[in-house]
């Protein structure tokens, strides 16, 4: 398993792709994290951080998916469609 925690990029230090680093804020705690694997990520984005690296950009539009699914489930008590 892999401890992955969402944090917000507050600054990006210039650096060639594999050396690209950024400061990530986790609820007021800030740590320098490698952004080598999220070249598309920018200041303000939330990223999932694991062992010193951002491994994924959090898709904010999809963040409510679980709540939408819950609503749907309640509406269609016996629905057969799945949500992906």
């Amino acid at each position, binding site marked *: 398993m892999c401890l992955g925690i969402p944090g917000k990029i507050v600054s990006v230090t210039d650096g060639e792709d594999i050396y690209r680093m950024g400061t990530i804020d*986790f609820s007021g705690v800030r740590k320098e994290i490698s952004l080598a694997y999220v070249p598309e990520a920018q200041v303000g984005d939330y990223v999932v951080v694991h062992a010193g690296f951002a491994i994924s950009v959090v898709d904010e539009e999809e963040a409510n998916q679980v709540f939408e699914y819950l609503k749907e489930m309640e509406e269609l008590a016996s629905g057969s469609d799945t949500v992906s």
Partner: protein
Amino acid sequence: MDNFVFSSSCPLPIQRYSHITLAHGGGGTLMRSLIDSVILPAFGDKNLDQLHDSAVMQFPQGRLAFTTDSYVVHPLFFPGGDIGSLAVHGTVNDLAMSGAQPLWLSVGFILEEGLPLETLQRIVHSMRRAADQTGTAIVTGDTKVVDKGKGDGVFINTAGIGVIEHALEINPQQVKVGDAVLINGDIGRHGIAVMAAREGLEFESGIKSDSAPLADLVMALIAGGVEIHCLRDLTRGGLASALNEIAHASQTMIAIDERAIPVCDNVKGACEMLGFDPLYVANEGRFAAFVAPKDKEKAFSILSSHPLGAGASIIGEVKTGAPAVVMKSQLGAMRIVDLLSGEQLPRIC
């Protein structure tokens, strides 16, 4: 030098050596000069100034409380405190946890060869400030020097004597079913502040240690007539370990509610990042109070009105059952909060 008047804002000129050498512990003139130039000016007390083999004090009426603790912390200076203030707060708090008003402290230094004298100056001044704040005097002490590599800069032992001027019995055996459990503020700050400064894990948090003297707060509870059954500071091992110790010592079950336990946002953030549980993170200015149910609200309001208890909370109560700590999770499920086998380590996983 003999006429030097203590002033914490005006450090003394450092003598011939800028660092601790083995000779500083050798009992000769260098040791004498270390005591004269660093220790006495900082702690200056009429007892200590006698430099006799023991301090002699007039004890007031009441029962005597006596405790000792050793302090090893890395780094020596951390946000919100240092090993010096910690060594005073820790021992003062141990006295307070038995309901005693702290009076006198002893201090034993184990210094590592090569320690900058300036560092020692900062530490002793910090100790003096902390002692003044708690109304205690440092009345006796000792200094030893160990070879380089055989210490971690400074180790400090402090012992303390306090007076108990009331009739309450405050210890785990007094804990009774129905007792309310309170804490005086949010948990986890000290452990995280120290962790943030640790080599290899550095992170910026703005989190300051909660290190603080708790005697005032305890005296306020006693003065307010609260029927206190037990007090315990939430140091190493945090809230979870402290409550477990009391549950086992008192043979009771302690039930707490996760939602009632305050944790500040940045401590939460740091815990998530490192994979820690704040319940197990050390505090140096937090304690749990077990009080009779009738005095629950009174205790809460006394704690809340004191600056060191502003974040106080009633976190649970004592129940019948096998000795254990159980917690209602934030999702409403009950689980056992056990002792950890050792220090929490950052997880990847």
